[in-house]
């Protein structure tokens, strides 16, 4: 037993309470802290982020985008705890999207349904089938495994908004963590996607739209989310199988690069977020103008929103429509109306929609 505690660093004690044996090295601060202090700082920091950024107002209805994965599962748990503990006065809901991926989403939705019971939060599921008439299984059958993430990502973004509208919520929160955001900053730089680069670090987005979204885990390291999951619940019920349709190579490289950096210098993740926040876009850079889709009324910088273009392609049996650089379909629809120099959004670059900013 003595040897065992030696292994765990018995010579040192938790640098917060100075009483107990440390169990975690915090990536953010490199502090060695014990289990009890970890729970406390983990939850308290998220509370501080919520308070300092005024993420919520009392009486608001808030949907938690719930995929059944670790981040949204921890978010649902922590947010309902904090709501109780600090009297936020929020009505919380779980919102899940059923993309129609057999063997993946059907299993993860079972996890969310258990969370509904465990946390006592009402659950709304919206499906691609109902919204668009197509499941991802159908889409992949038609278009194959190339570009399917484009469909899934574009459809998910709208589906979350539509689900949120069904629930009549004031806000939507997602479980994106610090690692995800650092990764997205890099990806947007690599892709030259200035419009996304400038908003991907915002803790709240879409305040001008119908349903603002926010990310309470913006500064929360993935390592700590996993540690929390494991340490606290042992059995915290979450689903961790990769989407069967997602090769997701480009994002995968960025992700691995971030993890490599983290190993050398854990603060790199927060520093990349900071860099993203502090970018200033040159005033000479043309940004896409936000309008609404002429077909469905959803926000769009083009005549038709991306979902409508993709859907039109599917329904006409031309699934390549809307894939690739923007010279495509919207160009056809718009014809000469396209303003010279307008920067079209390149949604094809958004590979996997589970990290949708």
């Amino acid at each position: 037993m003595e040897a065992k505690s030696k292994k765990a660093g018995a010579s040192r004690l938790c640098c917060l309470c100075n009483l107990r044996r440390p169990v975690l090295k915090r990536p953010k601060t490199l502090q060695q802290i014990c289990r009890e202090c970890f729970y406390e700082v983990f939850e308290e920091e998220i509370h501080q982020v919520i308070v300092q950024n005024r993420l919520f107002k009392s009486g608001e209805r808030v949907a938690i985008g719930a995929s059944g994965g670790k981040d949204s599962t921890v978010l649902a748990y922590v947010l309902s705890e904090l709501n109780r503990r600090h009297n936020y006065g929020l009505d919380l809901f779980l919102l899940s999207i059923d993309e129609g991926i057999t063997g993946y989403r059907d299993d993860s939705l079972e996890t969310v349904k258990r969370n509904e019971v465990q946390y006592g939060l009402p659950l709304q599921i919206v499906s691609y089938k109902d919204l668009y008439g197509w499941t991802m299984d159908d889409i992949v059958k038609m278009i194959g495994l190339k570009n399917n993430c484009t469909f899934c990502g574009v459809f998910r973004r709208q589906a979350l908004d539509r689900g949120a509208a069904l629930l009549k919520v004031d806000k939507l929160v997602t479980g994106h963590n610090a690692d995800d955001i650092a990764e997205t900053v890099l990806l947007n730089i690599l892709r030259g996607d200035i419009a996304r680069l400038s908003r991907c670090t915002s803790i709240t987005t879409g305040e001008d739209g119908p349903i603002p979204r926010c990310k309470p885990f913006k500064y929360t390291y993935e390592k700590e989310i996993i540690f929390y999951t494991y340490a606290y619940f042992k059995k915290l019920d979450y689903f961790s199988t990769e989407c069967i349709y997602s090769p997701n190579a480009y994002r995968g490289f960025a992700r691995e690069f971030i993890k490599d950096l983290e190993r050398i210098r854990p603060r790199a993740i927060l520093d990349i977020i900071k860099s993203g926040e502090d970018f200033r876009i040159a005033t000479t850079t043309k940004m896409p103008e936000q309008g609404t889709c002429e077909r469905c009324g959803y926000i769009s910088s083009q005549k038709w929103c991306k979902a409508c273009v993709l859907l039109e392609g599917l329904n006409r049996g031309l699934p390549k429509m809307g894939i690739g650089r923007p010279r495509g379909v919207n160009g056809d629809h718009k014809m000469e109306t396209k303003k010279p120099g307008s920067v079209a959004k390149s949604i094809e670059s958004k590979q996997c929609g589970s990290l949708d900013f």
Partner: protein
Amino acid sequence: MQLTLEFGGGLELLCDSVKIHKVNINFPNESDILTMKDLLSWVRTNLIKERPEMFMKGDTVRPGVLVLVNDCDWELSGQLDTTLEDKDVIVFISTLHGG
């Protein structure tokens, strides 16, 4: 030496979708200690059935894999140099996919 190894976050898929493995490991040639470094090479040879690069990079775990030894972050116990003892529980959780 008896050890319990647990794989999570998708890593179990690399070892026949079995999450918990109770294993018996001999000390490496004429040594009387077993370190995490020895264990990783044993796991790679004996448990990982596919895509070992999802688990390891060089002689250590791939960045993004969280390692706990008896519920404790292995960064506190010396990572690869951590000395293991009988009945230790080692957990490997991947963070590399799925949110």
